[in-house]
């Protein structure tokens, strides 16, 4: 511990021990505990106590009957536990009988303070820290703590109850650490007393008729099997699994969620799943006993297991697919589809039982679709994956939701009535449909997919969120549609779809709802990015009103839409898809005006998003050598940097540095690999002498921009600028230009100006800088040092323990002053 902190600690302890000086904020107590934790982890707790007797004083003091705040009491309990984690310190504290007084019956446990949940929580956490060594186990047994922990499992505070459960698991693990590890064959009857006591308690709870008790027991077991993979866990499972199996015989199965968690936790445990202890049978039995809603998560968990018997997987998959099978059955799909979905081939479940009410139906379908979506990309997903029936079911659900499907059966009619207009199911189904684009499907089904997507994109009833998902799913399906061999164009099928889709897009871009306009533009940007080069797409797009409407949306009242329009226009222009009426007088006249329009947005738009979007577009244009930019790159870069440097949004300034870097690379050649260990070829000599190469950078005032950014009040900007300047200095390392005497005063004045900038006075511009001056300034600056400073988090000073102690004392002092003022 720092001597400064040691000096402050006694004062703090006396403040904490004084009930008249309440600690206003318990986050500082948490920070204090964190600090003690780092100290005790790094060194001896005993030494800490001996060097700082005030700590022991505090622990003794809190035991006196007084009105101490529950926070300080909880803090002291946790601190004591933390200190006693080391056995020598534990013994030291035991000598003074301090620990039994803190954690035993005589302590807060019996007092009024126990009613505060924070004290109970502090008691548990203290014991949790303390229980690290065999002596601690004896202590726990002596002070009867385990019984208290049992009762705290049902505490009214969920935090306390959950911590109590975890503490039990910890104690069980600790007590068996020494005993069972040496003898893996040891039966529970031979386990230490403490462990036996806990196991009996769990057994008793599992036999109980009260669901909360069963839940507590199951949760303790789940944590045990989840965290501990020692051989003794197998012994424990063998002993308890019959009781768990008994739960399945009850109707309804109590605490089903916790039971599912437990079984999955057991199944994931390497010790248990590899042995034959009836686990798979229990899982199979559970799958068939639980209700469809409860069985879904279990089925998903089973399917995610790396190793698991094939029959069980098939059963789990059938359970997971049940709702979809039901949908297909109710809507009388082709029987072929049904066979492949109904994996069990057993009694099929009817809509009435599985999907009895609207709420149940919607909930179950959403969960099922979400589960399948999670499962789809996994390597261990069931094989063969029933792509076609899943596609069929998803399309059917979407059609039911939009009222398109015309079911003939009663069950189908009910489903239709439940699902029509249900946004939740629509969203889930569209998400899953998008995921299914990863696989292929029969041509006829893919046609149906595109048809239903088009229906959703066209329908006036699609809500904005549904529409966004429909756009996303459409893009994924278009992306996955095969390209025609030998021709870099979309397949005729997708072409046909595009032809129908493009008339829909203008309507969406004119929607009064900004979310719709925005997702329409995002979709357009994606499409152009992917197919902008393909003739069929280009023709269709140019024939539509889309490019013109997109340009109009640059002036949309909603900033998000403007930002998306900027991105879309950037793409359109890059791909040469902007509509330019052929006019001989103004060749490319309108093209220029887009640059002007984007510059206008960059310099005048009141919102950050469109300006950021403009910077992204400009950077991309510069990188790609866009025609507008290539004509007069220097002028373009100078103008953009000038505007960006005055922007109030740090992301715009940071993006300005990105653009500067691109320009730099283009002027000086590519930077070496960022990986310091990569083998780099010798840097290619610049095409011209360096001074000449730096001149364009000087002309566009890149250095002024970078230096300003170096002292930016936003750290990411400064860091980025520092990196850029370091790169530049590396590039100019070999430069040995004329360091003429004439330039020295100029360097000094620049350095002086930079110092003023650093001090916060950025008013004075640097003006035009000669390359020599720049190089000299770069060399004289401690950029590495600056980078080091910037790399540290900005609150490094405030986070120091000394500062924490001072703050806490100051707060209390301030409180004291207030009191004085009152008098």
């Amino acid at each position, binding site marked *: 511990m720092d001597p400064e902190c040691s000096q402050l600690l006694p004062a703090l302890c006396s403040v904490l021990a004084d009930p008249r000086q309440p600690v206003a904020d318990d986050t500082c107590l948490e920070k204090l505990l964190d600090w003690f934790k780092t100290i005790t982890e790094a060194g001896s707790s005993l030494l800490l106590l001996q060097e700082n007797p005030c700590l022991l004083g505090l622990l003794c003091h809190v035991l006196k009957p007084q009105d101490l705040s529950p926070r300080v009491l909880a803090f002291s309990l946790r601190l004591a536990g933390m200190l006693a984690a080391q056995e020598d310190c534990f013994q030291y504290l035991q000598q003074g009988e301090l620990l039994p007084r803190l954690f035993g019956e005589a302590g807060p446990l019996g007092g009024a303070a126990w009613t505060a949940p924070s004290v109970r929580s502090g008691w548990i956490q203290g014991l949790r820290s303390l229980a690290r060594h065999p002596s601690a186990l004896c202590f726990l047994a002596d002070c009867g703590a385990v019984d208290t922990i049992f009762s705290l499992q049902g505490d009214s505070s969920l935090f306390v109850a959950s911590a109590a459960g975890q503490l039990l698991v910890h104690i069980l693990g600790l007590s068996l650490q020494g005993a069972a590890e040496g003898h893996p064959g040891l039966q529970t009857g031979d386990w230490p007393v403490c462990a036996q006591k806990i196991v009996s308690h769990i057994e008793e709870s599992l036999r109980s008729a009260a669901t909360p008790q069963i839940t507590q027991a199951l949760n303790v077991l789940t944590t045990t099997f989840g965290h501990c993979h020692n051989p003794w866990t197998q012994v424990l499972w063998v002993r308890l699994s019959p009781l768990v199996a008994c739960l399945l015989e009850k109707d309804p199965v109590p605490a089903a969620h916790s039971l599912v968690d437990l079984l999955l936790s057991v199944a994931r445990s390497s010790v248990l799943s590899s042995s034959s202890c009836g686990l798979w049978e229990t899982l199979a039995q559970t799958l068939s006993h639980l209700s469809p809603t409860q069985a879904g998560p279990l089925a998903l968990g089973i399917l995610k297991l790396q190793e698991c018997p094939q029959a069980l997987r098939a059963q789990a998959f059938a359970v997971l697919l049940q709702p979809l099978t039901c949908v297909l059955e109710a809507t009388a799909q082709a029987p072929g589809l049904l066979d492949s979905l109904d994996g069990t081939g057993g009694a099929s479940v009817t809509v009435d039982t599985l999907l009895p009410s609207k709420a149940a139906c919607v909930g179950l379908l959403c969960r099922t679709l979400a589960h399948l979506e999670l499962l789809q990309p996994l390597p261990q997903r069931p094989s063969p994956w029933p792509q076609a029936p899943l596609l069929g079911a998803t399309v059917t659900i979407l059609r039911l939701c939009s009222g398109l499907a015309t079911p003939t059966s009663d069950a189908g009619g009910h489903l239709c009535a439940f699902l029509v207009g249900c946004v939740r199911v629509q969203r889930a189904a569209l998400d899953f449909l998008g995921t299914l684009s990863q696989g292929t499907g029969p041509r006829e089904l893919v046609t149906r997919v595109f048809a239903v997507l088009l229906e959703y994109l066209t329908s006036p009833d699609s809500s904005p969120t549904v529409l966004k998902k429909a756009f996303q799913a459409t893009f994924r399906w278009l992306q996955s549609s095969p390209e025609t061999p030998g021709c870099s164009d979309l397949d005729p099928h997708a072409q046909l779809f595009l032809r129908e889709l493009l008339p829909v897009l203008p309507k969406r871009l*004119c929607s009064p709802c900004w979310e719709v306009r925005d997702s329409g533009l995002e979709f357009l940007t994606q499409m152009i990015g992917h197919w902008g080069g393909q003739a069929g797409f280009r023709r269709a797009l140019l024939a539509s009103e889309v490019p013109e409407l997109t340009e109009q949306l640059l002036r949309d009242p909603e900033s998000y839409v403007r930002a998306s329009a900027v991105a879309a226009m950037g793409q359109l222009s890059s791909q040469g898809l902007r509509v330019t009426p052929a006019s001989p007088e103004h060749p490319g006249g309108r093209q220029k005006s887009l640059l002007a329009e984007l510059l206008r947005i960059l310099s005048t738009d009141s919102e950050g998003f469109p300006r950021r979007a403009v910077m992204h577009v400009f950077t991309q244009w510069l990188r790609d050598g866009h025609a507008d930019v290539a004509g007069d790159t220097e002028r373009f870069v100078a103008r953009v940097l000038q505007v960006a440097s005055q922007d109030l949004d740090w992301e715009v300034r940071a993006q300005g540095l990105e653009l500067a870097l691109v320009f730099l690379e283009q002027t000086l050649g590519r930077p070496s690999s960022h990986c310091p260990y990569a083998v780099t070829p010798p840097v290619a000599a610049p095409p011209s002498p360096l001074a000449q190469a730096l001149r364009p950078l000087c002309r566009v005032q890149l250095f002024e921009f970078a230096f300003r950014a170096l002292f930016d009040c936003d750290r990411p900007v400064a860091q980025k600028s520092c990196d850029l300047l370091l790169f530049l200095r590396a590039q100019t390392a070999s430069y040995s230009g004329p360091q003429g005497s004439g330039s020295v005063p100029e360097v000094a004045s620049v350095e002086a100006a930079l110092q003023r900038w650093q001090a916060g006075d950025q008013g004075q511009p640097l003006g035009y800088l000669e390359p020599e001056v720049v190089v000299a300034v770069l060399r004289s600056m401690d950029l590495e040092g600056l980078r080091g400073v910037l790399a540290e988090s900005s609150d490094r000073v405030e986070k120091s323990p000394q500062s924490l102690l001072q703050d806490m004392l100051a707060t209390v002092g301030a409180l004291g002053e207030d009191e004085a003022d009152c008098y």
Partner: protein
Amino acid sequence: MKLYCLSGHPTLPCNVLKFKSTTIMLDCGLDMTSTLNFLPLPLVQSPRLSNLPGWSLKDGNAFLDKELKECSGHVFVDSVPEFCLPETELIDLSTVDVILISNYHCMMALPYITEHTGFTGTVYATEPTVQIGRLLMEELVNFIERVPKAQSASLWKNKDIQRLLPSPLKDAVEVSTWRRCYTMQEVNSALSKIQLVGYSQKIELFGAVQVTPLSSGYALGSSNWIIQSHYEKVSYVSGSSLLTTHPQPMDQASLKNSDVLVLTGLTQIPTANPDGMVGEFCSNLALTVRNGGNVLVPCYPSGVIYDLLECLYQYIDSAGLSNIPFYFISPVANSSLEFSQIFAEWLCHNKQTKVYLPEPPFPHAELIQTNKLKHYPSLHGDFSSDFRQPCVVFTGHPSLRFGDVVHFMELWGKSSLNTVIFTEPDFSYLEALAPYQPLAMKCIYCPIDTRLNFIQVSKLLKEVQPLHVVCPEQYTQPPPAQSHRMDLMIDCQPPAMSYRRAEVLALPFKRRYEKIEIMPELADSLVPMEIKPGISLATVSAVLHTKDNKHVLQPPPRPTQPTGGKKRKRASDDIPDCKVLKPLLSGSIPVEQFVQALEKHGFSDIKVEDTAKGHIVLLQEAETLIQIEEDSTHIICDNDEMLRVRLRDLVLKFLQKF
């Protein structure tokens, strides 16, 4: 209680409720879809319409060619448009005591009823309903009267001839009862019979029932009605909305505990969500105008147009349409726009609070101020000089058969740049467009109907829990075009009773109680006796006095003191019996204890027999029989009065007297 159903149109209802001694007409809707069978009335001579070929029978007989014209395969009557009136033969309408109007769309048949049936009662409606209803009628009369048509076709209505006509003329119902539009004089006379009411105001009808209008949330001043007596409650729900638009929100709570709920006026487009349709409307409007086309919106002069203008107010700037003129053309355009701003108390909370700022509640005031929205009584006059294209025109009539809209259809129909957007759900847009075919203009159908949909109805019914629901038959089955949509019908328990035009329903509910008042002095004289904790009884002798459906118990007249002459009065003059009353008995006789009591009093040889109604106690020695039943006890003994009295007194010991 009976319900006479005079209209088959579920959103333009006209029903008569007979309840207690009153006859109440619920709404007075006019089915105007009949006008779709007629040729449009052009404001400016239309060569196309006047040159349409006459229709002739298959055999070439052309005797109808003056009356019927053919256009693109459809046949239309070339005559002044006529309307299908509510049924007038089912019940004598002169016996109707009151007419309750729920909203301005449901009163359009009022002049036909009040002026031509001998009706002498009162009509009740809220102020905005009357004012805007008047505007709608005025517009209708104006549209039809300003294009006088010499010809009035009637030959085609002959039943034998009608059979030969093509659909839909062939299937048109009750054509003989179709009538031409009323005159302004009839309108004024009809409206003079209306008495204005406010929400939650209680109106007594002959002391028998009380009627109360409640906000229905659909239109300015629109109401549902509660018709209740002391022990019965009938709710009439017609044209209600739960969406947040301009009117005051719907009052649902007051509909609770109804014995019967008559449910009419649900949305006509249950599959279209109004929000989606407004979006569709705006996008299509913007797309057309951007391409240099004009937009025509056939609409009523009040109602949804206020909401559309409000949406456009927010939308036009964002869509870059600030320079596009919006025209609203109707003989009552000015009044409609101004009336809407003065009915603050009938508006939703948001709009009400604006009035205190003070600001006009509707933003169309600002559109007018900034010259973005201009309104004209007709396309003649100022409009023709201000007219600038591309533009957006709101004008009537939504049937496209009369009004300024006819001119714009003729003017703009030939260009595919222009668009007609249908927002009113009352007419089938395909039928409305039929006489304008072939049409190059784009047609968009975005019906905006804010009335309750079936999901909202099922929530409403769950909440208000009526004992019985009565509704038009259309609501008890899915729409014919979507027979699988089980969600598009009323689903309630017990199943709703349905009605159709010209049907009389006996409502399934019996009246059991009537409230009777008791005069204070009579009440004072009562001596209640508690027979059970919380239940007291008293005997009362009084005169029941009934007047104006109110019943009062009054003290009986005092017996005139017998004067000197002790001559008996004639029986007919006899006043109610005022001699000392025998006490009334109550309670039951426990047989076992009764037998014990008999034994105690020296009776022996007692036998008890159980009968279906009670018990028979046989005293064999005394040859006496005591028959104890639920509501009577008989002692049968042979001329031994002493014995009978002894037994009677024993029986009485077990009973309470008062």
